[in-house]
């Protein structure tokens, strides 16, 4: 089938932007990333975008495809319904060049909730057991690959870059609801803030965008309830 691919281009120095259009013959089962790689190989080598694993694991190639954030390596042409493919960089983050955005603010926000395991005791003398039920509570949020699709789909984040954003809440959820973790206090301090959880208006864009199908809005509401109950 024939598709028209429109790719957002932005000059790194001048910031001037435009859309470049390419017409290609593709297999409906091709992934958007395949088509982009082919265009880069054969038509225009100067197109800049991130990708690494090619299999939905590394989270490098989140971008806005036909109006929704997705991973180019996980999106099939046939999923897009129609023959027009419009590829744009993630919103809410500064574009450095073409489809490459500055992920630093996004990663800095993750840091605020200490996104790593903090043991309850300083030196555990034996293995820390966890039941299947205890693990189930945060199982969903362990799947995050930090691609940024959720945070950059969030209108609250577009209007305020200081807002921690859904990805940060997913990370916080993963550790706060871990029965072995003891780092609640500092995480909650960051979450229970004017740029924290309470700016979430349950818009569900993050849940729709997540390539790992994490129920993000649900996780956020669990955090809200947890924090309110602690007061």
């Amino acid at each position, binding site marked *: 089938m024939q598709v028209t691919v429109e790719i957002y281009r932005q000059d790194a120095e001048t910031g001037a932007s435009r859309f470049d259009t390419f017409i290609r013959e593709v297999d409906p089962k091709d992934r958007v990333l395949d088509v982009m790689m082919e265009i880069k190989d054969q038509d225009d080598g100067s197109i800049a975008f991130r990708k690494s694993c090619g299999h939905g694991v590394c989270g490098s190639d989140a971008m*806005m495809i036909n109006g929704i954030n997705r991973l180019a390596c996980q999106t099939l042409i046939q999923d897009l319904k129609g023959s027009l493919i419009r590829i744009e960089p993630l919103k809410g983050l500064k574009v450095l060049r073409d489809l490459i955005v500055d992920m630093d603010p996004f990663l800095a926000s993750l840091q605020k909730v200490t996104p790593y395991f903090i043991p309850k005791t300083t030196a555990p003398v034996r293995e820390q057991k966890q039941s299947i039920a205890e693990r189930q509570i945060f199982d969903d949020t362990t799947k995050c690959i930090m691609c940024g699709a959720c945070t950059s789909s969030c209108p609250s984040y577009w209007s305020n870059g200081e807002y921690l954003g859904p990805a940060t809440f997913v990370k916080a959820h993963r550790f706060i609801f871990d029965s072995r973790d003891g780092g609640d206090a500092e995480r909650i301090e960051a979450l229970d803030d004017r740029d924290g959880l309470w700016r979430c208006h349950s*818009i*569900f*864009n993050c849940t729709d965008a997540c390539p790992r199908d994490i129920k993000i809005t*649900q996780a956020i*509401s669990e955090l*809200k309830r947890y924090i309110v109950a602690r007061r």
Partner: protein
Amino acid sequence: MYRVSVEMLSWLLHKITGFSIIGFLIFHIWGMAQMSQGPDAFNRVIETYKTPLFRVGEVLLLAAIAFHGLNGMRLILGEFTHWAMQKHKLLLIITYALAFVVAVVGGYLMWVAE
């Protein structure tokens, strides 16, 4: 342009109706102040409120309040219960359906009332 889903549309409508209702409140207080100037002023204001423009406005106001209130209830339910989060699609449909019924039935009754 990011695709506008029903959830995102609801958020936008919630904002728009919210600000409209605040606007109405200010206008309403101003109208009341006008009315309190005496019987003549009272009658004049009531005559203005009977014009088609204001009557359409009243029906729209009812629609805005119905949506804003019901959508607010949906959001609160989602914040407080796990169940509402899981059934959020269903709750959205209920919100729009109820708001529609309230706006149409209430709007009709207001329109035929003299």
